[in-house]
Each structure stands twice: as structure tokens, then as C-alpha cells.
């Protein structure tokens, strides 16, 4: 069956610009997670959705980062006024309840 998909696969932007990253989870998975992975590091938790609501956004680095999941399926991670330090791979994962998390291929964000 289809896994987690993420678009775009690569995004290059300029400092100060706004970007949106999209995640389409595995069909039927109610839980959705965003992680960020810097070079040579493991993924770091950003935010967790159960259904439509953000149950835990404690990993978001600051208020420039925001995520939504309006219909309980697709999620969008939004970053305002991007900075060079935001450059990383943004990973989305989904799970059925609190089970194993299945990851998408990631979006590589480069801020020039």
C-alpha cells in the first residue's frame, strides 16, 4: 500500500521567505508527527497531531514554525521568515494509535 508521502522533495528558498511543506500520511493513520533532521544527527521531534488537533507542539523551535492538519489527514508545516539555521530535512511520520511510526522520504529545505 501507499506509504507516507511528502512534497516537495527539495525546497530552496531565500532568507526571510515563507515556505510550506506538505505531508500525506498512510491512509487511516490518526497520528501524525513532524521531525527535523540535521546532518549527522537523528530526527528531532517537532509536533504531534492526533486527528485534527496538535496534541503536542513542544518541539517547535519558535513561533515562526506552525503546522496544521485541518481534516485529520494531510498536514502542512509552515515556516515564516526563514533563517539559514532552518536548513535541514523535515520528516513526517504517521502511526495507527501509539504504534510504530512510519516515515516519509522527507523534504530537504535549504535556506540561502
Amino acid at each position: 500500500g501507499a506509504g507516507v508521502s511528502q512534497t516537495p522533495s527539495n525546497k530552496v528558498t531565500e532568507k526571510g521567505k515563507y515556505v510550506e511543506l506538505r505531508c500525506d500520511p498512510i491512509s487511516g493513520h490518526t497520528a501524525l508527527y513532524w521531525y527535523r533532521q540535521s546532518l549527522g544527527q537523528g530526527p528531532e521531534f517537532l509536533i504531534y497531531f492526533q486527528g485534527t488537533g496538535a496534541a503536542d507542539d513542544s518541539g517547535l523551535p519558535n513561533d515562526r514554525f506552525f503546522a496544521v492538519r485541518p481534516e485529520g489527514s494531510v498536514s502542512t508545516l509552515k515556516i515564516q521568515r526563514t533563517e539559514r539555521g532552518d536548513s535541514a530535512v523535515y520528516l513526517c511520520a504517521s502511526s495507527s494509535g501509539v504504534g510504530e511510526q512510519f516515515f516519509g522520504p522527507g523534504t530537504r529545505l535549504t535556506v540561502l
Partner: protein
Amino acid sequence: EDQVTQSPEALRLQEGESSSLNCSYTVSGLRGLFWYRQDPGKGPEFLFTLYSAGEEKEKERLKATLTKKESFLHITAPKPEDSATYLCAVRHSGGSNYKLTFGKGTLLTVNP
């Protein structure tokens, strides 16, 4: 705060040369230890979940084991296609028990 330390950072093996990767963890009430494989430019691919000390799981040339303080990923007679970064993650019981805390990974290279 949960902590995960993986060693070695990098491991180079000859084809057929068995070895083990280590994952040491500190967590307040383990509610799952997870192993993932990550190929360059891809998202983490789920391999195993272990829940209690003494538990073992196998898949092809890989076997994961768990004690109260660490987990090992044993690779028997590896092949070049086993080359990847192997990530370990933990999930704790109690609040925010959906969040995975990852180690930095072990980069495994298997030479033909």
C-alpha cells in the same frame, strides 16, 4: 530527559564479517525501543520494536536484543546492501509517550 547514545558512530565491515551495533539509553519507563534503517536521501525505514528486557527479534541478517540499559543490533554475514545508517529510538511511558527520542545513528559500510 530521555537520552540515547549509539556506538560506534561509524563501522566498516567486509562482506560476511559479523558485528554488533550498540544503543545505550536512559528513559523514565521504557515503552518501546525502535530500530530504523536510513539510506542516504531517504526517510527512516522501520525495522524492529522491542518492549522488555530479554526480548529478541530477527529479520533476515539482523537480530535486535534488549537489556534494561541497552540494545544491540547484531548483523550476521552482512552484504553490501546492508550499508546504511542505523538509528535507535526510545519512547517513554507517561506523558508525551508518543514522542520518539533518537540517537545519532551508526553509519555502517559493508565492503564487497
